[in-house]
C-alpha cells in the first residue's frame, strides 16, 4: 500500500511540465528495485520479530504473565516464548510440513497448499513486475484478475467441450479478459497521457461492480439460485490435479513456472523485452533511440494484463470452480507486494509468490489452532513491504544521494 503514493511524493516540489512527469516515476521505481537481496531477507526477519511482538501483545496469557513480570520473570518469558513459538510453529506446520498430522499425506500436504495459494500470486505478480520494469505502475492487477476469472469461469460452465481442450479455451479466455482490461489503461496512457495508476485503480472498481452485476443475471450465471454466484464449472474445464485427492495442487502451478520462464525470456533474451526495459529506464532516451514509447506502453500493459488474467483463470479453474463476487480475494493487491518483494525480477517474483502463498496457507492453521488473529499474518506481510520500500523512500524524501554502486543493476 505504501508504494501507491510513492510516485506522488517527489513530484510536488518542482513545478514540472507534463513531459517531465513520466521521467520522475521510474527514478523512484529504480531505487526501490535496485535494493540488495539482503534488504529483502532482513525485511522478512525484522517483520517476523515485529509480528512476534504483536502475537505476544494480542495474547491474553502473555499479558496476564506480564503483570507479574517482577514477581515471576521466568514464567513471563516462558509464556512469551511458548506463545510466539506456538504461533510460528503452527504457521510453519500449515505452510510446509505438519509433523502433527495423522497421515503422511496430510503431513506433506501443507507444502502443496502453499503452492496452490502462491500460484495466482505468482502469475499476477509477474504481470505487475513486468509493468514495473517498463516504468509503469500497474495497480490494476485486481481488475485484471477479476476479468480473467470472469471470462474463464463463464467459458467453463457455458461451453461443454472435451477435457483439456475446454480448460485451454477457458484459460485463453482468461488471458484475453485480463489483456483487454489492462490494454484499456495502456491505450489511454499511450494516446492521451492518462496516468495509468489512476486508470487501473478505477478499472478495478469497474471490474468488481461488473462482476457483481453479471452474477445477478440468470443468463450469465446459468443457475436458478437467487444468491449472487454462478453455476459450478464443468469438470472438463478444471485445471487437472497434479496429485491425487487430498491434494489440491493443480496444473496452474506448472503454468506459473512456465510463465516465470516466459517473462525471464521476454525481458532478458528478446528484442521487445529490451525495448520494454529501455522505456522503463529512460523513456526520453528510448524515444531518441527510435523506440515507439506508446507502442511499448500498450504492449507492456497487454502482456501484464494477460498474465494477471491467467492468474484469475488459475484461481477459478484450479481451486474455486465457481464464480462469486469475491473470487479475486486480494490477489491483485497482494501481487503488488509480491512483485516489489521479488525486486520485479521473474525468479524473485516467483519466490516471493511462494513465500506469500506459504504465509496464506500457514495463516489458516495458525489462526484455527492457536487462536492468533489472522490480521497478524497481514501485519507481517505489510511490514515486509514497508521495510523494503522505506530506505529508498526515505532517501528520496530527504534528497539524500543514492548509494553510487547500486545504480548499475537496472
Amino acid at each position, binding site marked *: 500500500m505504501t508504494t501507491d503514493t510513492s510516485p506522488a511524493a517527489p513530484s510536488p516540489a518542482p513545478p514540472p511540465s507534463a513531459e517531465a512527469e513520466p521521467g520522475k516515476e521510474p527514478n523512484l521505481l529504480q531505487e526501490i528495485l535496485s535494493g540488495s537481496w539482503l534488504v529483502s531477507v532482513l525485511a522478512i526477519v525484522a517483520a517476523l520479530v515485529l509480528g512476534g511482538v504483536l502475537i505476544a501483545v494480542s495474547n491474553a*496469557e502473555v499479558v496476564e504473565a506480564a503483570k507479574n513480570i517482577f514477581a515471576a520473570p521466568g514464567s513471563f518469558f516462558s509464556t512469551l516464548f511458548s506463545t510466539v513459538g*506456538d504461533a510460528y510453529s503452527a504457521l510453519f506446520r500449515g505452510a510446509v510440513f505438519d509433523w502433527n498430522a495423522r497421515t503422511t499425506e496430510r503431513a506433506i500436504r501443507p507444502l502443496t497448499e502453499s503452492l496452490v495459494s502462491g500460484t495466482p500470486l505468482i502469475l499476477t505478480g509477474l504481470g505487475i513486475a513486468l509493468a514495473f520494469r517498463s516504468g509503469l505502475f500497474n495497480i490494476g492487477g485486481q481488475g485484471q484478475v477479476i476479468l480473467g476469472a470472469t471470462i474463464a469461469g463463464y467459458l467453463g460452465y457455458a461451453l461443454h467441450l472435451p477435457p483439456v481442450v475446454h480448460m485451454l479455451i477457458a484459460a485463453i479466455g482468461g488471458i484475453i479478459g485480463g489483456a483487454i482490461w489492462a490494454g484499456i489503461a495502456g491505450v489511454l496512457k499511450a494516446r492521451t497521457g492518462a496516468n495509468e495508476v489512476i486508470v487501473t485503480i478505477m478499472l478495478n472498481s469497474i471490474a468488481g461492480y461488473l462482476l457483481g452485476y453479471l452474477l445477478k443475471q440468470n443468463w450469465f450465471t446459468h443457475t*436458478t439460485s*437467487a*444468491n449472487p454466484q454462478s453455476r459450478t464449472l464443468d469438470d472438463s474445464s478444471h485445471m487437472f490435479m497434479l496429485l491425487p485427492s487430498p491434494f489440491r495442487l493443480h496444473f496452474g502451478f506448472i503454468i506459473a513456472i512456465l510463465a516465470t520462464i516466459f517473462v525471464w525470456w521476454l525481458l532478458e533474451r528478446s528484442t521487445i523485452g529490451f525495448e520494454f526495459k529501455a522505456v522503463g529506464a529512460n523513456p526520453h532516451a528510448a524515444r531518441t533511440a527510435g523506440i515507439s514509447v506508446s507502442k511499448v506502453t500498450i504492449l507492456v500493459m497487454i502482456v501484464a494484463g494477460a498474465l494477471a488474467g491467467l492468474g484469475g483463470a488459475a484461481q477459478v479453474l484450479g481451486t*474455486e470452480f465457481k464464480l462469486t463476487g469475491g473470487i479475486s480475494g486480494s490477489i491483485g493487491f497482494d501481487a503488488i507486494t509480491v512483485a516489489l518483494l521479488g525486486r520485479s525480477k521473474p525468479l524473485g517474483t516467483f519466490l516471493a509468490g511462494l513465500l506469500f502463498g506459504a504465509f496464506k496457507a500457514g495463516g489458516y492453521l495458525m489462526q*484455527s*489452532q492457536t487462536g492468533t488473529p489472522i490480521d497478524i499474518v497481514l501485519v507481517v506481510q505489510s511490514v515486509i513491504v514497508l521495510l523494503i520500500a522505506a530506505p529508498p523512500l526515505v532517501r528520496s524524501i530527504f534528497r539524500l544521494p543514492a548509494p553510487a554502486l547500486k545504480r548499475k543493476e537496472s
Partner: protein
Amino acid sequence: MKKLVSAVSIAAASALVLSACGSGDSGDSKAEDFLGCMVSDSGGWDDQSFNQSGREGMQAAVDNLGIEESLAESQGDADFKPNVDNMIQQGCNLTFGVGFLLEDAIQEAAEANTDLNFALIDSTFSDADGNPVTIDNAKPLVFNTAEAAYLAGYVAAASSESGKVGTFGGIQIPSVTIFMDGFADGVKKYNEENKKDVKLLGWDKEKQDGSFSGDFENQGQGQALTKQLISQGADVIMPVAGPVGLGAAAAAKEAKDVKLIWVDSDGYESTEYGDIILTSVVKQIANAVEDTIGEAQDGNFSSEPYVGTLENEGVGLAPYHEFKDEVPEDVKKKVEELKKKIIDGSLTVDSESTPK
C-alpha cells in the same frame, strides 16, 4: 497445542470437582470431548451481523455447555475451503459455516467426512442447478424473517406521520430481500385495514427490485441512501445491511423525527442509536447455534433444517423501548393479534425468498 491440553485438563479437573459435589451431571464427561468450530465469511467476527451473532452463539455454548471452540475468520472466498479443511483436521465434531458463500465448502466437507457433523447459517444446500438437496450430516439454519418484518412493517406504517416509510438492503440476496418482502406486506396490511395509503420507498415486492447500498461495509453509502429516502419524505426507515445501517442511523439522527427499524439484533442494545430505534426485527442466530451444538452434543444431531419463525422464537419483534408510550395501544394489540395469526397459520407471509 499446549494451551488446548491445559484447558482440557482444567475442564476435566473441574468436572471431577463438580461430580464430587454430588451433582452427578452426566453431560460433563461428554462436554470436554466436544469441539465446536466456526468459519466466518469475509465480514469477520465484528460485522454486527450474522458472523457476530454466530460467534456469540458459539461463545454461549462454550460458557453454558462447556465445549471447546475453534474459530477461523476468512479474508476472502479462497479461504473458505482451507479454513473448513483445517477444522476437519482438528477433528471438529460440528463445524458451522456462516453465510451462503460457504455452502460449497461445507457441502463438500460434509460429503467427504460423513463421521463429522456440519451446519450452515443463513442458507440451505443445493445442487449445481440450484435445486435443494439434503445432506445427512449437515444442517441448514435459516430464518423466516419475513414473519417478523411483517409485524415491523405494520408498526412502521402505523407510526409514520408523513405517510411514507422506506427501506434499503446491502446486497440483493434472499436473506436480505426476505426482510423487505415481509416489511412491504406489513405496510400493505396496515393500509388495507385502516383505509390508508402509506407508501413504501426503496422496495417493490412485485418487481423484486429496490435500493441497495452494494455491500455490507460502506456506511457512507448507507448514509447517502437514507438521506435520499428522507428527502423523499420517509420518516420510518429499515436498513437491512448489517453495519451499513449505522450510516443510516447517523443520517436519521441528523434529520429530525425520523425513526429506524433495526435488523438482526435488538438495535436498542447493540447500537448507540437507541433513542431513534422504534423496534428491531430480531434474528436469533446465536440461540439457534447454541441449540444445534446442544443437540449434537447429546447425540441428537439431525439434518432437518432449522427454520427460525415467530412460533419457535427464532425470529421476532424487539420491544419498543423508548417508543413504548408513543406506539398506540390498539396498534400494539393489533401486532400481537397478527403475530398469533401467523403462528397459528391463519395468516401466511409469502416471500420468494422464504426458506423451503
